């Protein structure tokens, strides 16, 4: 993996590329691609991102290859001049969004869900040969019971505004030609024509705010960096996606790497950098490979290197890896890591725009922020500002997970009421009919409780209720999720990830975690809630970086809306959801128990008795409430409560 990345950026020699021809070159590529694409009769797009891969999409892809070869239908895996006339294009895309229904296969606009390799011959026969849909593979709208032909009929997609994600699940992420044929790198061309000031003005008109969590206006960050004296400046892409329950940035990098690369080039132009660096999580090797492949392709076409489009602009891109430290998502820590040191934050100011990498002015932007840039430059800031609200313009990608019926990667226009996202796009909770809360902002965020479901989702509204937009984690929780437990989960994460440089975070976080552990273990004491609040305030006020300042948020937010749950844990030593194992009892329901003995074997305290094939029972006095029996029973015969 890392060894494949070349040390020195090889700038193409003048013989390779004639910059003067670059502008025409884009037109040429486009024309060539269109000529090649004309030969394509039909297109099958198979989702090749993690969610679908884990559900077997590679097998489906392979089955298409073997079955098509048997039928003699000409097909190609790449669009090249050597594609046959009237051939079929078998394309592997990034995440198409509806991961819960994967593997997804799109045949000319007809979306097939949960496709198995065994279904492939039928798809070929029915859809490709006879032109009819394979009904049983179409998604069923749970409200109407009707089968949906394509994404436009599926409620999950209907309420979304898919701009970034449209291309992400459609294009072949490894084919720069296809990106160019869809308008790619024309934004760069335009950016070079309007110049850095023009770019910044367009960004200002768009109102785009940073998608990494803070929501800082992107144009202002660029202008601040641009204004700094000196010729050496750096553009940095923060692809260290740290929220432990979210994957938007990875999906964008894997599904549409060229949008982010083009964004990085335009950003570099705007701030006056000669070099841009992708700081990518080491756990994302595929994302890094795709970006590297994209960079190489750009260099070959003269979209990177010297004198890009004959404009006099020289720019190079390279990749550096993170190494599994959440704090490195913080700008100053990220810079320390890029300099080869431990990723420890330092006080701001100076801001990176003043003194960043190697002490030079640097701008750091999130992956999604950068992916928006080519669209904004191409279509205009006004177009972008047409989505969303006045103060929170544009669309935002979320990874919707947890206890909702539909989960996956979604994109909405900001300002959409939370309940529409949860109930219309998400289809409501998995079990029951009420969503208890939605968590946004990951370890730095908070919960949106039932009473706030009508609220439109914007930077300001989320802040008002004590959460944050964050980078796009959107975790749906139902009645079985314990709010004290979830707060403990996030705090545990922050304590684990604290770099230890400053005392409020290092000691305060540990103290808060001990109190929460005590509460969930049934040892909570009167005054614990006040203690939590006191330490939290100290951390928020005195921590050096965002990690420590925001780590108490999940606790404070759940306390604000679910204080009664904390009180029940502390005063009654009871967990209302049954999630905190030590605060519940376990009991075997005689009528459901088949006497398989699985619980008995799993019980470490040997307190379950019963003969095989007759109902078992638990001795409550010996039970250590470990929950193993509950987990082991396949017949839902162990009750927890």
């Amino acid at each position: 993996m890392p060894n494949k990345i070349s040390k020195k950026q090889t700038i193409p020699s003048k013989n390779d590329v004639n910059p003067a021809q670059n502008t025409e070159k884009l037109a040429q590529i486009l024309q060539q691609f269109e000529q090649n694409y004309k030969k394509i009769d039909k297109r099958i797009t198979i989702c090749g991102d993690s969610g679908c891969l884990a559900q077997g999409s590679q097998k489906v892809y392979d089955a298409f290859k073997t079955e098509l070869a048997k039928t003699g239908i000409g097909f190609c895996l790449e669009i090249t001049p050597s594609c046959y006339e009237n051939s079929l294009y078998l394309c592997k895309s990034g995440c198409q969004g509806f991961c819960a229904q994967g593997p997804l296969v799109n045949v000319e606009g007809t979306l097939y869900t949960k496709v198995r390799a065994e279904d492939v011959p039928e798809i070929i026969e029915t859809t490709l040969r006879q032109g009819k849909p394979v009904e049983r593979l179409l998604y069923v709208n749970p409200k109407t019971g009707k089968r949906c032909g394509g994404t436009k009929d599926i409620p999950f997609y209907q309420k979304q505004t898919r701009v970034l994600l449209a291309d992400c699940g459609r294009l072949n992420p490894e084919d720069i030609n296809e990106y160019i044929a869809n308008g790619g790198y024309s934004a760069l061309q335009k950016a070079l024509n309007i110049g850095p000031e023009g770019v910044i003005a367009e960004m200002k008109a768009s109102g785009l705010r940073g998608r990494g969590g803070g929501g800082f206006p992107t144009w202002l960050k660029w202008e601040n960096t641009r204004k700094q004296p000196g010729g050496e400046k750096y553009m940095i892409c923060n692809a260290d996606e740290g929220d432990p329950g979210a994957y938007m940035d990875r999906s964008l990098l894997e599904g549409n790497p060229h949008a982010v690369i083009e964004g990085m080039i335009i950003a570099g132009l705007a701030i006056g950098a000669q070099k841009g660096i992708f700081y990518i999580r080491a756990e994302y090797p595929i994302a890094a490979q795709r970006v590297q492949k994209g960079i190489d392709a750009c260099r070959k076409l003269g979209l990177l290197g010297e004198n890009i489009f004959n404009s006099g602009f020289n720019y190079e891109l390279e990749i550096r890896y993170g190494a599994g430290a959440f704090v490195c998502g913080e700008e100053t820590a990220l810079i320390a890591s890029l300099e080869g040191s431990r990723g420890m934050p330092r006080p701001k100011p100076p801001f990176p725009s003043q003194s960043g990498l190697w002490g030079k002015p640097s701008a750091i932007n999130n992956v999604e922020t950068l992916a928006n840039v080519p669209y904004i430059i191409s279509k205009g800031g006004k177009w972008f500002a047409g989505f969303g609200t006045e103060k929170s313009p544009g669309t935002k990608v979320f990874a919707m997970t947890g206890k909702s019926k539909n989960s996956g990667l979604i994109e909405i226009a900001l300002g959409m009421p939370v309940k529409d996202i949860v109930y219309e796009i998400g289809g409501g909770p998995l079990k029951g009919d009420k969503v208890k809360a939605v968590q946004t902002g990951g370890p730095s965020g908070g919960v949106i409780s039932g009473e706030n479901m009508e609220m439109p989702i914007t930077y300001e509204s989320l802040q008002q209720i004590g959460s944050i937009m964050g980078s796009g984690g959107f975790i749906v929780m139902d009645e079985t999720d314990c709010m004290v437990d979830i707060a403990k989960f996030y705090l545990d994460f922050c304590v684990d990830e604290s770099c230890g440089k400053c005392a409020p975070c290092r000691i305060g976080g540990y103290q808060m975690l001990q109190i929460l552990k005590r509460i969930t273990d049934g040892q909570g004491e009167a005054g614990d809630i006040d203690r939590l609040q006191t330490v939290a305030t100290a951390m928020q006020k005195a921590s050096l970086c965002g990690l420590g300042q925001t780590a108490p948020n999940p606790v404070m937010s759940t306390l604000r809306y679910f204080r009664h749950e904390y009180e029940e844990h502390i005063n009654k030593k009871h967990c209302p959801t049954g999630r905190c194992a030590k605060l519940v009892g376990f009991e075997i329901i005689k009528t459901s128990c088949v006497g398989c003995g699985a619980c008995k074997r799993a019980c470490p305290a040997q307190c379950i008795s019963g003969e095989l094939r007759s109902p078992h029972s638990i001795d409550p006095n010996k039970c250590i409430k470990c929950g193993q029996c509950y987990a082991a029973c396949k017949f839902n015969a162990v009750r927890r409560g």
Partner: protein
Amino acid sequence: MSNSSNEELNSIVDKWKDVKGSLVMMLHAVQDKFGYVPRSAAMEISSRAKIPLAKIYEVLTFYHFFKLTAPAKHQIAVCTGTACYLKGSQELIKALETELGVSAGQTTADGRFSVTALRCLGCCVLAPVMTVNGKIHGHVKPADIPSILREISKGEEQNAQ
């Protein structure tokens, strides 16, 4: 360290040693080759790239990604990202502990299995998720753990034959 691995190490150091701030990248390359960062490799980097050994270990121990001991034969990783946590990843870790006698972050005494906790693998729809030697298993129940482990052992026997 064998001659060939020594050569590989040299080429890694030579590739990066003149690039500013490349220690993390160098360590990545080493771990990519050997599966972990052996002490001998750290010492070699120190002397060839003229980086104090203390600095190398300061960096190595700061980042979770770097491993200082050889990886186990079979690597089991449980996702403890938010979605998987909500759907019971802790119970999977407990079940592995019952079966293997090691908790997250440890390796069995015979070096056959290691158990680690990972964060979001991007297939939250399959939560809780675990990987066995890189292969993703979704919707895992604690009760599935014994059979998953048996499958690994079976594969091992078949390979041995």
